[in-house]
């Protein structure tokens, strides 16, 4: 078994994603601690170009499979290609991001190659020569430390687990794999951008609104405006998603998105356990609520008691003034 720590690299329009740059740093760190080598895995319809970019980050090896079937993610094509390379080269760790596609990929791949799997982890490290991973469960009420007893450990990792790697120049080699003969039973017919879509998980600042805003009109008038002043994204509590004020994809919480931005501003959100599950790992939490006993204040770094319909316009103005000055 090779002591190689692989990361699955993802690129958009030829550019490595920020998540991939974090995974490069993490793979380098783990490989050093395990006495092995980091390597990237790229599965793409333009893998050759992405592989060259990856080499410039100082990786000694890049495993690459290029095929038109890899233009859009399908479980069959991606897992088929990855499983073939894994069986051939036998890495001891594979790191991926924790996007929905990667959650799908890692689950099917772990089943295929009989690996140990840590899904949607917030950290991974080497302890006493073994991989351990941290993952929250039960709406972030339980923090699990996972150990593994398999030859291969697959970990899907959330953002902000390592600094983004910087290009360092390099003279590594690209190992080209064949696209295997796999059953291709699924086909992507079309991919459409959602209107006003934003990946909340990638946002550094999130302003969220809840029932305390009083109406969908107030939400629409105040929350996106404040988010824009912060140059951030906007989300919502389950209560107002269920009430139909805001579409589901904006929902932060256990049954919506889990986020950990640098700054989370909760406006008129009482702080139900289901909401806290989705945002309690944020760096700084600001809570704005008229009820001083609202549970949201228990997790807040800074609390403001008052009417959100007065405080949000004032805050938008204060933020705009500060960023103008």
């Amino acid at each position, binding site marked *: 078994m090779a002591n190689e720590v692989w990361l699955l690299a993802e690129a958009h329009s030829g550019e490595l994603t920020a998540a991939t740059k974090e995974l490069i740093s993490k793979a380098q760190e783990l490989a050093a601690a395990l006495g092995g080598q980091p390597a990237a895995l790229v599965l793409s319809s333009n893998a050759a170009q992405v592989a060259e970019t990856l080499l410039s980050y100082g990786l000694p090896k890049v495993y690459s499979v290029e095929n038109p079937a890899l233009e859009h993610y399908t479980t069959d094509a991606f*897992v088929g290609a990855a499983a073939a390379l894994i069986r051939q080269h036998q890495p001891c760790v594979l790191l991926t991001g924790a996007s929905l596609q990667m959650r799908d990929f890692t689950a099917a791949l772990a*089943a295929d190659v009989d690996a140990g799997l840590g899904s949607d982890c917030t950290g991974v490290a080497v302890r006493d020569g073994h991989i351990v991973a941290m993952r929250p*469960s039960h709406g972030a009420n339980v923090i*699990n430390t996972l150990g593994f007893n398999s030859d291969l450990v697959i970990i899907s990792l959330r953002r902000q687990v390592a600094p983004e790697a910087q290009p360092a120049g390099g003279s590594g080699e690209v190992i080209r794999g064949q696209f295997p003969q796999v059953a291709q039973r699924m086909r*992507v017919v079309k991919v459409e951008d959602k209107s006003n879509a934003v990946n909340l998980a990638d946002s550094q600042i999130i302003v969220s609104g809840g029932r305390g805003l009083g109406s969908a009109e107030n939400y629409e008038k105040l929350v996106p405006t404040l988010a824009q002043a912060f140059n951030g994204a906007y989300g919502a509590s389950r209560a107002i998603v269920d009430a139909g004020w805001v579409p589901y994809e904006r929902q932060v919480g256990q049954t919506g998105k889990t986020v950990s931005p640098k700054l989370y501003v909760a406006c008129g959100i009482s702080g139900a356990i289901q909401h806290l599950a989705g945002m309690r790992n944020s760096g700084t939490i*600001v809570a704005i609520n008229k009820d001083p006993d609202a549970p949201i204040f228990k997790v807040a770094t800074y609390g*403001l008691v008052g009417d959100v319909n007065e405080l949000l316009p004032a805050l938008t*103005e*204060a933020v705009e003034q500060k960023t103008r000055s």
Partner: protein
Amino acid sequence: MHAVVFIKQVPQQNSVKITPDKQIDASGIEPIISLFDEYAIEEALLQVEKNGGKVTVVTIGGEEQIDALRKALAMGADQAILVNDPALRNIGSLGAAKVGAAVVRKLGDVDVVFCGKQSTDDETAVFGPAVARYLDMPVLSYVYKVHELDPGAKRVVVDRAMETTTETVEATLPAVLTTVKDLNQPRYPSLLKIKKAQKADIPRWTAADLGLNTAELAPKVTYLDRVPPPPRPKGSMIDGGSAQEKARKLVDVLVNAQVI
């Protein structure tokens, strides 16, 4: 057509306790069907109403999970199976998926398998894609709209809800579909159906019934530790005479802390 739905009973609130031997203690918390599984049940019922056939609901777990199966029967499922074997406890998501695959194989004539995108307790989102892999079926995860599900033509077309995009994907049947919130509107069972479901005969299957070698189900993941999340540092309140004053003070604090 034959639709199989895997469901799991979970605590309604996740304010669970952790026992000294690192197990989850959810005693005293009301058990419910995991949210995303309700959409899986409803979609199976809708598709079978359209195409004819039957819905089988399956749970892998202890006797306490029987209530979830009875609720699914009350919603309209035709039969329920509880896979209950002490040897199948704590086998993890991948182990459960192996058991699930064995259930589908034993049922034999399955056109489509539904399950929630993830449970709301363990939240691994592994079961659906893994059960598909073990069954050598395609998987369509994060489904929020079913355009077409045609068991005759062996074809399914769905929309998948990704982070910033909607993907329309077609696949061959049989297939595994995992469901997100708002895919449909799960129905409320009638009182009559609830009463009927209480009396329904629910067979118990064991590892032996499924021809499973439990040694092969040993989990590859162990819990080295399980703890509550660290408490957040104590916060402070920002006071002021007016909304403007409070807002200005907050912005100053955020700037000083280099948050913005």
